């Protein structure tokens, strides 16, 4: 399995870290697993968000690994309250800053408010609070780091778990092929709120991720970014394959990278020569190793159709 050789990709490979800010606000020393996709994503996100950022982080892997008292990995103000309320707590922070700046009790400078939650905390238990925050129009960027299951509690299935994946609560068995439902499309749900900015991103494409996080803060109003975050522990892959798995997810169309700015869809990384077969992505992971060719075919058809739909959305909305 090789990383694609197209010039654009090679460019990202070589220059990523020189082009990103040097400052670190999500610092090393945390307790994440080797090859943790979310931790890598957080590092880039915080480089993009910068110093004047308040982070609201819900219960989950990233909260646990980054804040075991008395240690912290956070060089910005950071708060954790509970599991399902990143958007709710961030709404309160936003309201407080608006009121205090208006009343002259806080200096009038731009403060980025960043809500961070996993796929369980977003697609399942936190969906209502997310919808409320987006609908009310708070000045918050909400980033869901999606590792496609409840990894913190031991790889239980969430509604963001993909079709066919074996988790500890959607296990493959003698009469089951794993998760029997299709992954919930939270980015589409966010876009349906007609908010200024929605994007998908992946730490395997760091400059794309950094640009999207910055863009989300440039625009006034709520933003939602869905971060594809590879979990070697939960997916059953060697930790050194994290970056490659993220790229394969994008190259196969399993996780397309796009943004929706004021309703206009744009694929930010496209593959004019066509997508790789999903099998290239699936076959490397323990959670998919039980899949029959028929199930793989079903997934391929769904992925192709979804990608085509996205291309159509791009065409229709860019006109």
């Amino acid at each position, binding site marked *: 399995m090789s990383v694609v050789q197209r010039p654009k990709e090679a460019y990202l490979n070589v220059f990523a870290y020189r082009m990103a800010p040097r400052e670190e606000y999500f610092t090393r020393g945390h307790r994440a697993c080797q090859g943790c996709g979310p931790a890598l994503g957080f590092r880039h996100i915080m480089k993009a968000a910068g110093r004047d950022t308040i982070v609201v982080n819900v219960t989950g892997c990233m909260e646990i690994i980054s804040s075991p*008292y008395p240690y912290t990995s956070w060089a910005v103000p950071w708060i*954790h*309250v509970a599991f399902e309320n990143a*958007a*709710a*707590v961030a709404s309160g922070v936003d309201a407080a800053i608006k*009121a205090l700046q208006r009343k002259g009790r806080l200096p009038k400078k731009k403060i980025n408010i960043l809500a961070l939650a996993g796929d369980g905390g977003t697609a399942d238990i936190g969906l209502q609070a997310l919808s409320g925050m987006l609908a009310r129009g708070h000045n918050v960027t909400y980033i869901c780091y999606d590792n496609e299951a409840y990894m913190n509690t031991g790889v239980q299935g969430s509604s963001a778990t993909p079709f066919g994946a074996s988790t500890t609560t959607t296990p493959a068995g003698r009469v089951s092929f794993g998760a029997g439902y299709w992954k919930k499309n939270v980015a589409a749900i966010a876009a349906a709120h007609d908010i200024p900015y929605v994007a998908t991103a992946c730490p395997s494409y760091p400059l794309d991720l950094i640009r999207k996080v910055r863009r989300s803060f440039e625009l006034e109003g709520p933003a939602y970014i869905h971060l594809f975050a590879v979990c070697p522990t939960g997916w059953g892959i060697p930790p050194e394959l994290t970056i490659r798995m993220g790229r394969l997810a994008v190259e196969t169309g399993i996780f397309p990278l796009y943004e929706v700015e004021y309703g206009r869809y744009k694929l930010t990384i496209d593959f004019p020569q066509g997508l790789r077969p999903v099998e290239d992505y699936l076959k490397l992971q323990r959670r998919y190793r039980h899949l029959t060719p028929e199930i793989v075919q079903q997934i391929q058809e769904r992925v192709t159709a979804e990608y085509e739909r996205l291309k159509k959305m791009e065409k229709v909305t860019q006109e």
Partner: protein
Amino acid sequence: MAKRTGIEVSIAIAEAARQANVDVVSAYPITPQTHIVEHLAQLVADGDLDAEYITVESEHTAMSACVGASAAGARVFTSTSSQGLALMNEIVYLASSLRTPVIMALANRSLSGPISIWNDHSDVMNERDTGWISIFANNGQEAYDLTLMAFRIGEDRRVMLPVMINFDGFILTHVIEPMYIFDDEEIADFIPPYEPVCVLDTDNPITMGPVGVPDIYTEAKKQQEVAIRESRPVIDEVFEEFARRYGRRYKPVETYKADDAEIVLLAQGSVIEAAEVAVDLLREQGRKVGAVELRLWRPFPFDDLREVLCGNSIKQVVVLDRCISFGGPIGPVLSEVRSALYLEKDRPMVVGVVAGLGGRDIHIEEYMEMFRIGEECLRTGKDAGEEPELVKIVGLRE
């Protein structure tokens, strides 16, 4: 100087939040709290209150947003009832653990099911151990005064704890009462601007709400327990300053004709005023009865209660619970009062009754019945512990 005017109690409570110049209001509508939040929304809409009003999508988010706003340095206010409080329970506990001094007006209402929008105290008793300072008002004036004082108590840098003010749903919320409402200038310097201790500040980053590993969790809880106990002198100070400035004196435990009484009825909230009528009627018959109001619920006023109930003429206490502790010691107030007196040598007997559930009126005859139960207990010398059937629901249709 404050004039005495007729005003709906809910409106007065909202006015108290305006006079405290709150920065953020985050609330979700629920009967019978609605008039409070509607009035606050109108105040914001008219520019009479410079605050952000967050129209949240649930009570869970209402309290979450309060915690977030408080952590960011704002003075915050919310209000709820019943199911709303039950839904926000998880974050109610976190608000005190994170030491965010959220002020909550709680229009007490029964918990479902069956669904009931009417008054009792099952909602607040469910939150008994959440680490909030909890105070009961027995009329509209008290609800207004205590809401104002709640900001002073909770936000005091020696306290930094959330405060809930309890007042009976409908019985108080929807009643127009003659009340002294302060002129804004009169109350302004009683409530100085909020100065948070720990705040989400980009110039001084802190980590709030970290993981409490077994090595530290116990100590964190101990600190919280010390904090709420040490809030008591501050509560006394604020009550005292309020009395000095405005002439209305509040005590953690109030008494009515208890000085030479043999039997007292102990209760919380608006029922105490009706109980006083029953006391007067029985006094006319020459019976030595009185009433005790347990105004401060958390921190529990152990010493005040012992001073009122022990080593004097009182031989029998009848505790009126507005909530059932299913399968347990009848009601939470009964078990706490009993527990507080347990080690006293010269203590009265304590018997419990439950009444006024889900908005059921308690009539004067029923207060009489409660005193009769007390007399019976006193006469036979049988404590409810020996004969649990003595503890009963007064006003139950059989």
